[in-house]
């Protein structure tokens, strides 16, 4: 089939193109270019989804050489859902960023462009070493974005994030080296049948190193320490991009490896990520309840919500429902967290302070922003009618189906803790504003972008059938 009409390569080439052109145009420029590019990418993602539904998984041999020698791009239901999430979150955030960076965005557009290109490349990659290069591109772009704010504190947070990211990539790379040494190839498709349950020790160590590296990149408890300063200190559109999307990429990879090539090795290790997930939920929520700063609260909420994603690993006895629960939680959290960080950015701009108790009277002055924050909160709490609720429903259903009661208890406790820290903010906002409080005007477009994302996460709660149908494609029973 003629390569020009294949959405897979274009999903990677398009963001790379507009990112480098934005760089050419100079600092602060490239906003409109980005919007056009992102709209195109969303169309491509939708087109890919339709092709998957019609014809099943799609693969694209780069250079025409085919798997072991060349590198393949592969898209199944899971990658199509993640691609849709990435473009669906990036487009409104681009609108938001254009209005947010009123006085010139520095290198935001090229950095964001390369970040999104790396995300798309990662969701489509089917080669372990290619994934290493994509992870590095993603990590460096993310570090550049974190340091965008300038100043000592963001730079320190960015450096710590970079060091953790590089150490994790090093571990991942050693894993790839061991896999190549053992089997002579790093392409996932030919590798999967080769790895048997009683594979040599080197392969087991490789799997451990790679998964551990990815867990550090996805900021799962106890590797979460770098996330709150990095995401909390960065400008709002950057925090939204990082919390909603970047940490999901590492989670996606863990899922891909856990269910794919390393499935025989990881069969009965599901309890470990679930334990770490439970720790993340409890510790993240506890910190979110205590931090005085608004954006830190939202960042700690990311640490907690990530815990949910890892609760599905012991449930892979029944692969389909567990995968649905995890993916829906990732999509719901992606939309809601982007909306919440966007709303937090607006509140910070309006009140001039990054403090939770500085929000009194916001309900009166910025109703749309608070409504967006509230709706995003509803999704994070997993309350109906949001997509977060559907994910929670599927997770509890799968857990009860397999009799894992402690999992149910953790999910419920997490929901209540999320309610505690979301309403901690809403309670402040509903208080009457003290006279001294004056609000700086905020462009309306910012509010509508945040509201759009939050509404999407709720509306998805009413109609998840198509998404689940798309997800099911290519997932071996």
């Amino acid at each position, binding site marked *: 089939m003629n390569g020009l009409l294949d959405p897979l390569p274009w999903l990677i080439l398009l963001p790379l193109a507009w990112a480098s052109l934005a760089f050419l145009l100079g600092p602060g420029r490239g906003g409109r270019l980005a919007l056009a590019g992102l709209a195109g990418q969303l169309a491509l993602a939708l087109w890919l989804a339709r092709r998957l539904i019609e014809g099943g998984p799609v693969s694209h041999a780069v250079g025409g050489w085919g798997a072991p020698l060349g590198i393949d791009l592969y898209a199944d239901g899971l990658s199509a859902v993640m691609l849709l999430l990435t473009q669906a979150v990036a487009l409104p955030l681009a609108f938001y960023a254009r209005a947010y960076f009123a006085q010139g965005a520095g290198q935001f557009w090229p950095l964001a462009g390369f970040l999104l290109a790396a995300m798309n490349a990662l969701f489509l990659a089917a080669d372990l070493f290619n994934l290493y290069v994509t992870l590095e591109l993603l990590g460096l772009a993310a570090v550049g974005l974190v340091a965008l704010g300038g100043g000592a504190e963001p730079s320190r947070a960015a450096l710590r994030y970079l060091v953790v990211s590089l150490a994790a990539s090093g571990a991942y790379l050693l894993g790839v080296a061991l896999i190549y040494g053992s089997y002579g190839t790093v392409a996932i498709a030919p590798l999967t049948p080769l790895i048997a349950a009683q594979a040599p020790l080197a392969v087991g160590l490789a799997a451990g190193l790679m998964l551990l590296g990815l867990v550090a990149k996805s900021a799962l408890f106890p590797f979460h320490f770098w996330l709150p300063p990095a995401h909390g200190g960065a400008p709002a559109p950057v925090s939204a991009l990082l919390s909603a999307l970047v940490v999901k990429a590492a989670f996606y990879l863990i899922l891909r490896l856990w269910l794919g090539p390393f499935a025989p090795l990881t069969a009965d290790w599901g309890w470990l990520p679930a334990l770490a997930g439970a720790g993340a939920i409890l510790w993240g929520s506890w910190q979110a309840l205590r931090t005085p700063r608004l954006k830190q609260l939202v960042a700690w909420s990311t640490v907690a919500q990530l815990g949910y994603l890892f609760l599905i690993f012991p449930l892979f006895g029944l692969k389909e429902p567990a995968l649905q629960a995890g993916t829906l939680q990732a999509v719901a959290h992606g939309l809601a967290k982007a909306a919440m960080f966007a709303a937090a950015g607006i509140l910070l701009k309006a009140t001039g302070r990054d403090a939770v108790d500085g929000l009194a009277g916001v309900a009166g002055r910025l109703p749309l922003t608070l409504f967006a924050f509230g709706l995003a909160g509803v999704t994070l709490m997993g309350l109906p009618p949001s997509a977060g*609720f559907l994910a929670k*429903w*599927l997770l509890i259903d799968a857990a009860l189906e397999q009799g894992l009661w402690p999992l149910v208890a953790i999910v419920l406790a997490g929901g209540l803790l999320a309610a505690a820290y979301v*309403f901690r903010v*809403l309670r402040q906002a*509903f208080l009457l504003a003290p006279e001294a409080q004056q609000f700086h005007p905020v462009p309306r477009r910012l509010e509508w972008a945040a509201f759009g994302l939050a509404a999407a996460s709720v509306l998805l709660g009413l109609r998840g*059938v198509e998404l689940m149908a798309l997800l099911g494609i290519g997932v071996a029973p």
Partner: protein
Amino acid sequence: MSPNEALPLAVLLSSLLPGLIIFALPESWVGTRTTLNLAGALAKLVLVGLLLAGVAAGQDYGFRHAVLPGVELVFKADALALLFVTLSTVLWLFTTFYAIGYLEDAPHRSRFFGFFSLCVTATMGIAMAGNLFTFFVFYELLTLATFPLVVHRGTPQAMRGGTVYLAYTLGGGALLLTGIVWLHALAGTADFAHGGYLAALPPRAAGQLQFAFLLLIAGVGVKAALVPLHGWLPQAMVAPAPVSALLHAVAVVKAGAFGIVRIVYEVYGVEFAQSLELLTPLAVAAAITIVWGSWRALFQDDLKKRLAYSTVSQVSYIALGVALFGPIGTIGGLVHLVHQGIMKITLFFCAGNYAETLGVHKVSELNGAGRRMPLTSVAFSVAAFGMIGVAPTAGYVSKWYLGEGALAADMSWVVAVLWTSSLLNAAYFLPILYRLWFRPQPAGWPAEHIPARGWRETGWLLLMPPLFTALAVLVAGLFAEADWSPLAWAKLIAEREYLQ
């Protein structure tokens, strides 16, 4: 989208759409907002009328919407649903009038009426839910929509009340969710059905079903204010009067009671529940709540708090009616669902008028209010007599059937409970009536506010609603035997629940 599917959806949308539009309305557009509110309320009234006619004629209305593979939002406007829908629709109309008058020039009215409409939509959804999943979706939506109303005033006390309200309701929600998903795991996705759908499960699941029942009732019991879970109701009285009237007297607590009815009759099936010995503990819990609520009401000097504890006790009559195995007890419980609503909303309207016009919040300050505000006090007295269960009022009818039902189910100790609670009702209502009518007016009222236009007593928008609902209390009592009365409708439902 056949008419049988479109009608229930239209009932839902008739409050959702105006609500969403009102959210977007700027504060100053008072005219548009009022017309939208009233148009929505009247449209819903007409639609519900059509539904009532259709259901009475044996039509069934409902529609399904797939949310996830194997999980659906199901709506079914059956007889039981319409009992609650009609009650809410009528009272929402009156409360809208009342709220427009009450919040004459208050701030944030767009936000208020937006969430107000959302609450009613949630109540409609709860009533017409066709399976436990849909019920839970709207049950939690009601919590989310009521929180901004409870904290509407924005004062620190309102915040405390709101926080307590959330803690209870979200906690209850978590328990309910666990119970629902557990049943979903055991029995798959099944719709509500006359006689329940759990009877077919193998006997070894009985223990799990009992535990699941406990979770469900605990979850729903929070909103139905069963004793250990009722703490939020008195705290939520910090909300403005229309919120206390419609929500804490009708929508929210009735949602809990309605949940108990659905679970016992259409999930477990009353015979299966009896065989699992679930009804007696429910009856005991209801009885304890009835007596405890009335007892606590005795000592409340704050008028709205006293009414709140009275609600705690009265709502459990419904749970008691459900727990009395037999059609008569069921009729008593179901009809009380309507009667308690009309009576309690009248009381809250009057309490609101006293507070708004005279600045009176305490029972001790009510001396001589009868002379100063005669019409409001007449309405208050009629409703108070209804609560005690005096002859011609609606309250008498429901207590009569509950008593008969208790005897039919040979649970005679329930009759004793009914008598004690009636005595307690008298004990905390009669002193108020005595103060209203037989005590001289004080020199000056705490915060008298004589409305510019309208009768001297208070604005007509604040006066008409309690009078109408007081009239309804009398009509429901006197014309109980008429075929369009709530009692007749309750009999129709009981017939369908037990006949199969």
